[in-house]
């Protein structure tokens, strides 16, 4: 019985094409909302990376663009090797990760309870939402000069840039995710005798957790933008600082390595979120409807 239910669930979960075609014609590749065989999907994803890389190689090989502006792949690879083995770039990455981690944890540790309360109790929402929505539109980067004046150029300033850049929006996102918890679910718990505190911690929080987890994943990506800006403005270490000093020496290859490295870090953190999500929310596999 369970088995047949699961099979059914898979069909329901699939996009509305009932089956993928046995032999792929050209038109089938572009059919609307029809799933492609997994191998085809993987080949497509990989080939775009290959294409990009090939294009880059061709452009540098032909000398269309001076390698001062666009270093060749081999230059970038050489640069990466030097940076990671000799110049201690790993240390700069570690410092940036540390700053992002602390800044993001500070922002999240306030944003989570606040967003949860705002999404659960109208009082807190009316009190805080307009103010947060207003502050959210102030660009975090505009605060950097002010934060340098207040906090100097130490790590405290780096943390604060990340907090200013992520806290307000994260709070509002958590609030929205909390509000999305179905009222019937809450009423069902009320009818089982749940008191307000139990409603928040035993119903609303666990129900909103997967969505909140996703909010964190998205906002963590922004934290990386802010840390690099903060390090470019005023720092003596970190990925942003390395990028800035490379530009002073017109070392474009190093800038490339810095930027690509951040992309890879982002990819890895996404992966970690996805894997831990699977452990934290085992019940989200094979969801019906």
């Amino acid at each position, binding site marked *: 019985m369970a088995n047949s239910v699961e099979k059914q669930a898979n069909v329901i979960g699939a996009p509305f094409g009932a089956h993928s075609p046995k032999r792929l014609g050209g038109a089938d590749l572009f059919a609307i909302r029809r799933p492609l065989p997994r191998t085809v999907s993987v080949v497509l994803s990989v080939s775009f990376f290959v294409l990009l890389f090939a294009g880059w190689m061709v452009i540098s090989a032909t000398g269309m663009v001076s390698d001062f502006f666009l270093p060749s792949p081999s230059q970038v690879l050489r640069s990466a090797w030097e940076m990671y083995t000799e110049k201690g770039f790993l240390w700069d990455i570690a410092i940036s990760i540390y700053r992002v981690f602390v800044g993001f944890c500070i922002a999240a540790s306030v944003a989570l309870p606040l967003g949860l309360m705002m999404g659960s109790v109208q009082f807190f929402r009316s009190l805080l939402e307009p103010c947060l929505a207003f502050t959210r539109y102030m660009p975090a980067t505009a605060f950097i000069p002010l934060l340098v004046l207040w906090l100097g150029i130490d790590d405290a300033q780096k943390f604060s840039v990340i907090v200013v850049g992520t806290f307000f929006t994260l709070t509002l996102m958590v609030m929205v995710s909390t509000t999305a918890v179905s009222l*019937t679910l809450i009423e069902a718990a009320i009818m089982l005798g749940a008191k307000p505190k139990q409603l928040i911690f035993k119903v609303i929080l666990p129900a909103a957790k997967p969505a909140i987890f996703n909010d964190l994943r998205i906002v963590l990506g922004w934290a990386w933008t802010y840390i690099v800006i903060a390090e470019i403005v005023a720092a003596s270490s970190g990925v942003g600082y390395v990028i800035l000093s490379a530009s002073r020496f017109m070392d474009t290859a190093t800038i490339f390595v810095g930027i690509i490295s951040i992309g890879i870090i982002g990819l890895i953190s996404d992966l970690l979120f996805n894997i831990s999500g699977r452990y934290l929310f085992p019940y989200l596999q094979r969801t019906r409807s």
Partner: protein
Amino acid sequence: MSDIIRINRVSKTFGEGASMVTAMEDVSLTIKAGEFIVFLGPSGCGKSTLLRMIAGLSDTSRGSIMVDGRAVDGRDPSVGMVFQTYTSFPWLTVQDNIGFGLDLANTGSRARTEKVDSLLKRVSLTRFAKSYPSQLSGGMQQRVAIARALAVEPQILLMDEPFGALDALTRVEMQTFLLDLWSQDQKTVIFVTHDIDEAMLLADRIVVFSPHPGRIAEIIDVDIPHPRTIDETEREDFDRLRHRLRRLLFSMAKNAA
């Protein structure tokens, strides 16, 4: 049998001023302990609204509702509810869903286990004790919801179109299952539906509501003895009742149009 629910001249309005809508006007009804009552009516007749007021999830605008001698003021421990949408907690296994109300009340672990196990057996879900709701069919999910409501031992069970989202076959299966369950402990049940056959199969009394604003149009006794099965619905007196209810509901639809 003693009266367990007294609904006295209850009205319900939504909104204020010019946009005020009267959902229910001057409804009075007395329900005896152990009765199986069905609220039947077209959508917009206020049957679910009245159920929510009995549950304490919604206030009355005028009039009063007494449950077990107490005026309704928020959720009463003697009232349990099953909803139309699937309301199992998706992050809890079937057994933890059923034990949810017991956990809220800090029930001791042995009493909890015994209770949950016996309920799992009653709703035939023992094999699925450790499954998550997303792995269950719609009928099973509603059985979890029923078991979960029964776990805290309410005297009154309110059911708001609980089988509305199920396919026709599962629906009949669930109706029979519910009758079976009810025959074991004779709780007072109020069951909301717009399905005539469902109402006839289940009810001791059918309270028919008319819409705009919601009022009680008629109260009909169903004199067919329990235990009932689906075969009963083919009896002649059932046919007569079916015609009568159909005429009643369709005349409302005409008046509304």
